[in-house]
Every structure is written in C-alpha cells, then in structure tokens.
C-alpha cells in the first residue's frame, strides 16, 4: 500500500512537472506547479513529516503560488511567443540535464542497498519535535528568518512601487 501510494503521487508529481514544461500559457504552468506541490505534500506525509506536509500546502501552494498567479494576472502574461532564443541553452543545457538525471538515477539505484527502506507510520516527526529543536538550539536562526521575511516584504514593496 505504501508503494502504491508512492507510485500514484509520484506519477502526479512527474506529470505536473512535465505539464509545467509543456504548457504555453504561464497560468497553466502555475496550476501544474500547484499540483506538484500538493502531491509532494502527500509524499512528505508518507515519509512521516506531518508539519512539513501542512506547511507545504499552506505556504507553497497557498501563498507562493497564489503570488505567482497574481503577478501573472497583473502583468497580463499571455501565451509564449516563439522568440529567437539561444542555441547554447539547447546545445549545452539538454545534455546537462540529461547527464544530471541519468547520473543521479544511476547513483541512487546502484547504491539502493545503502539506503534504508521506509515503512509507513514509523518515525513520525511531530510538530513538537520540530519546535523542540527550533526554539532551543536554533532560536537565533529562527528569529533571523523572521527578520529576513520582514526585509523581503519591504524589498518587494519598494521594488514594485510605481515610479512617480
């Protein structure tokens, strides 16, 4: 059952990613990305990361992707035109990506035995486990991230403001 769930939602991920690649209109790509993110949330659950799964849905799909959608709407991004692009992207890029995927797959599969096998329901990490670490050992980085978000807000407002 674990395997079946994994395969289904893994397929959703890959399908969504491929759709992002193949769609011409950016809004379609955005929606596909939402599918990917939600499927990933399920996969996190399967791996025992409850807080992260929820955070993924709320933060990523719910906030970031909505932000993307707003911007697409704001800028009235239309269908992609066929622009004369750079050859180098195809010449160098595709081999690069291909090498990447083949290499990584090969590595991970050939060392399959070095990794453990995940069982459903074991080693669940709860929110309290996470907060134990976050608010004791990593208190400073936690506070710094809040400052970081503040700065990001200010920066975004300053950059996107209309010039008078």
């Amino acid at each position, binding site marked *: 059952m674990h395997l079946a769930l994994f395969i289904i939602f893994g397929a959703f991920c890959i399908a969504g990613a491929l759709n992002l690649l193949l769609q011409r209109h950016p809004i379609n790509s955005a929606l596909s990305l939402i599918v990917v993110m939600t499927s990933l949330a399920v996969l996190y659950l399967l791996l025992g990361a409850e807080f992260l799964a929820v955070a993924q849905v709320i933060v990523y799909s719910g906030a970031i992707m909505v932000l993307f959608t707003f911007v697409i709407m704001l800028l009235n991004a239309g269908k992609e035109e066929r622009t004369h692009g*750079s050859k180098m992207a195809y010449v*160098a890029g595709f081999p*690069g*990506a291909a090498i990447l995927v083949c290499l990584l797959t090969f590595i991970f599969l050939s060392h399959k035995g070095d990794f453990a096998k995940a069982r459903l329901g074991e080693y669940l990490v709860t929110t309290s486990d996470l907060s134990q670490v976050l608010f004791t050992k990593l208190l400073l980085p936690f506070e710094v991230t809040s400052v970081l978000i503040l700065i990001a807000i200010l920066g975004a407002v300053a950059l996107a403001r209309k010039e008078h």
Partner: protein
Amino acid sequence: MTDLHLWLIPLVPFAGFLVNGLVGRKAPKAVVSAVALIGALIPMLQVAWVVWNYHALTLPHVENLGTWIRAGAFHADFAFAVDQLTLVMLCVVTGVGFLIHVYSVGYMAEEDGYWRFFAYMNLFLFFMLTLVLAENFLLMFVGWEGVGLASYLLIGFYYTKDSAAKAGRKAFLYNRVGDVGFLLAMFMLIAHFGSLSFSEVFAKIGADSALQGGFLTAIALFLVLGATGKSAQIPLYLWLPDAMEGPTPVSALIHAATMVTAGVYMIARTHVIFDRSPLALSVVAIIGCATAFFAATVGITQTDIKRVLAYSTVSQLGYMFLGCGVAAYTAGIFHLVTHAFFKALLFLAAGSVIHALSGEQDMRVMGGLRKKIPVTFWTMTAAVFAISGFPPLSGFVSKDEILYQTFISPSPAGKILWAVGLFTAGLTSFYMFRLWYLTFFGKSRLEQAHLDDHGAAVHAHKDTKLTLEAEPAHGHAHGVHESPWVMLGPLVILAILSVIGGWIGWPDGLWGSNWFGHWLGAGLGTSEGAGGSRSLEFMLACVSTAVALAGWLVAHVMYYAKPELPERMAQSLRAVYGLVKNKYWVDEIYGALVITPVLFIARYLLNVLIDRGVIDVGGMAAGYTAQGVGALVARIQSGNIRSYAGWLALFAALLLAASYFGWTAHFWVR
C-alpha cells in the same frame, strides 16, 4: 706643487660650444665669432702659462679631479696629466687651433650655419684637449670618441648635400671599427694590470723586465688597429679623402693637424708597451711605410686640390707611423709637429685659393694665379718646399730624421723601409710641385672652362655653400681676388713656422743640438738609435735632398715646360694610370667584400627573415592568439540568461560526475 687648473683647458672651449650651440643661431655674427675665438684663445694662453711655469713643475704633473668609476678593485679617475709629450701636443693643438679659428672667421663669413660651425669647432677642441691631457686610457678614449663625433659633425656640415652626409657617416664608421681595437686593448689592460692609468700600467710593465711579447703584443696590435682608424692608415684610411667634403678649415684642423695625429700620439704615449713587442713595432713600421707609398702614388693623379692634400696627409701620417715603428718616437712626434705647420698651411692656402676662385676646387681649371693672389702664393710656396723636404725647412728636418732612424734601425727590414720611404719622398715632392705648378703657373684655364659650359662635370667638386640659390658659381662677377687679412694672417704665421720650426730639432749629426729630440726623449724615457755616424747621416741627408730636387725637376718638366706631356704619358700607360687614378679601386673592393655582405645580412637575413619573420610574427601571433581566444571566450558572455543557464547546467553535471567518479576526489583527499 703648483696647481695649474688643467681642467680649465678643455672646459673653456666646451663652454664656448654650449654658448654658441644654444644661443648662437639668433646671435649676431660678431658675438658668435667672439665667443668662438675666446674659446680657442684662452686654452692657448693657459698652455703658454703652463710653459711659463715649466721650471716649477715636476713632470709628469698630475691633477686628479675625482674618482669616476669604482668597481671592486678597479678604479678610473678624472685625471689630467702634463708631461713633455702632452706639452708638445697642447702647443700644437691650441696654437694651430687658434690660428685656424681666426682663419675661419674670414672663410666661413658667408655661410648659413656659421654659429653651428664654430660650436662644433669648439666642441672639437674640447675633446682633443681631453684626449691629450688624459692621464688614463679611459679618459683618452672619451676624447678619442669625441673627436670622431666632432669630425662627423663637421664633415657633414653641409648636411643637405648627399655626398657630405655620406662622407661624415663613412668617417664615423671607419673610426668606429678602429675604436673596437682600442676597446679590446683597454679590456686586456684591465684584465692583466687591473688599471687603466698610464702611470700604473707603465710602472707595472717597467717593474717586470721579463715581460715580453705574448699578451702585450695583442694589446699593442689592438692599439694599432685603433690608431689606423683614427690616423687613416691602411686598412682604415678610406674615410680621409672623402672627408674633404667638409669646409676647408675643418680639413686643416682636424684632418691635417690634430685629430689624425691622435693615433701617432697614442702610440708614442704607450711606447712602453710597444717597446716590449718587436712584432707590433714591425707591424707599425710596415703599415706606415706601405701607407705612405700607396697614398703618394694615388696623390699624383688627383685633380681636386683638396684630394691631393688629403692623400698627402695619409702619406705623411705613414711617415709618422714609420718613425714610431722603428722606435724613434721623438722623430715621429717631431714630424707630427712640423706636419701640423705645413699641412695646415697647405689646406688653409688651398682654401684661400678656392675662396679666390669663388668655390673652384678642380686644378685642371686653375693656373696663372701667381700674380693675382701673391700672399697666398708665397705662403703656399713655403709649405710646398717644406713638405718636399728641402733644407733648411722644417719638413726636411723631421722627415730626414725619420728616414735616418729607419736606415740605422736594428730591424732587418730597415734598409728596405728606408728605400721605400725615400722613393715616397720623391713622389711627395713630385705631386706637391705638380699642385704648385697647376695652381699658380701657366695660363689661366679658368675663363676657358667657364666659357665652355656651365655646370658641367668639371665643376663637380665644388665647396658648396649652404645657400638656397641655384648652383652656378657666382665667380664671374667677383673675379679672382685675394683673401682678406683675417685669412692671410694665419697663413703668414704658419709659413714662418714651416720655415723655422724645424730648427729646434736640428739633428746632432748635422752639427745641430737636436734640442727637441733630447728634451722629449728625456721625458718619454726613450733614446734615439745609436749605430749611425755623422758622415752617414750627412750622406743620407744629401740623398734625401737630391731626391726632392729630382721630384721638383720632373714636375717642372711635366707641368711647366711641356704641359702636354702628362696627357701623353697617361695615354700610353693607360691601364696603370687608370688603376692609380681610381685609387686602386680599394673603395670598391671594400664595398664588395665587406659592405655589401653586411648590408645583405642586415637587409635580408636580419630584417626580413628574423626581424619581420620571427620577431614580428611572434609578436603578432601572440596578439592574434589573444584576440582569437578572447573572441571565443567572449561568446560565453552573451547577455542571454538561457545560455548562461545552459552552461551552468552542463558544467554542474560535469562537476557532479567528476566528483563521483573520482577525478577530483584525489584533490580533496590530499
């Protein structure tokens, strides 16, 4: 010890050079002349003062102005020294130099570049005085090079004239070849004696009486090479005839009286080295004798009055070398002194003739000038008799002394050298009287030549004035006129010296006291050869006089009594005549053997092959490579984000692969 302030002697002319060189162009002629004459007069007065103080001096009198080079154990100083030999040279250089400066005021009066001329003349005086006063080889070399430079500047004075520029360059280059010899000699001296100071080197040689031959011969031969370059002996004499392109006072001062005698002075100065090397002395003697003979033969066929005198100078310098070569250094120096008098006089008088004829130098169109320019005629006559060796004039005394010393010298070739020298004396007499007759006697050929055609080849050797007017000589309008007294004055003084100048060295054998020979010999530490006798000397003197008379007689016949004779002889001996007239084709031989290969190597091998082919190509290749690589690499910076991303992806993948498969792992492990 009295301080003679010897450094002032060269420095005043140098100051004159600076003043005239820097501000002379705008200054009025009178100022330029005054500066130049003061620059020549003051050294003369100072030399006179040295002579006045002679008895208070211990000779050699050295004044050291400070260290110049100090390198380890070696040091060379700015040191001036006076001894008898220096004093002789100083008197000649400053005295004759001053007279020629006075003469030049008149001769160069109408030239543009008047200021330049006098600046260079003062510069020449500065260097020559440095050469003569130097206490070590290095300072002498400074003067040596400097007079070469001044000679170049003055020969090429009419720099717009191509032949003059070439002649200046030729003189400098031939001098340079000789200077290599001087330099090599200096290097060997440093290597063997660790010093270049005359006193130290000579003391070391003197202390070691076993020192003979070997490297001393090498040093001496290198010095001889330098001397042949400067004093125009075989094989480096070819620049002197061409040097006649310069103004006549230059020929008088530099190429007759002073610069060309620097080689002889140098041999006399370094006689300590030469005395230890019989081989070198023989070489000197043979070179001197051969050059004397050779130049005299060429001189008898020349048609330009200055060329005759140039070859005569080469020939007489050969006599001086001959004198030094048989270790009769005082005789050689004595001939240097008397030669300075009559050769300078000859050149200046020739200049007066040329001036009278408004620029004509070719003897074939002269003649009949005796009545028209009497002062010039009589002074030149004195010089002609002096150089031909008629007693009791100065030339006879010095030349006869050399010939006598050659005859009685212990070297095996002495008699042969004497015979050749005697024959050359006859030739000397012949060509000088030839010049005398052609210039002053007979009917004037001047008007006829000018009537024939203007600007023909006959006018080829003109003493060109630096004006912008067209060429035709402005002689017709002026007519033949005597020179002004500013020019004639020096002529008269030199004529008097030519006549009586020999009397200070009248030989012992002919009932004289030879004051000069004994005085200078004591100073140098040499002695005249023994082995002769009074009667032998008297006999040889009579033979010399007879030969001189014979030369006069032949010239009289050929050029006065039967003027058509030279033509006929030239026709019948056409091959020989042609050979001699063209100076034995030596210039051409040198051109083919030396100059053409060198130019070929420079132009093709070095210029095209190496300079352009290798070095330029190498430099350009580096440039093009950098450009090419840069162009290639610049394509990465396209400004296009996607291409950047493409490169990023590719190289990230490669890095990953490399790190996994271990190519870079060993970098980290170590």
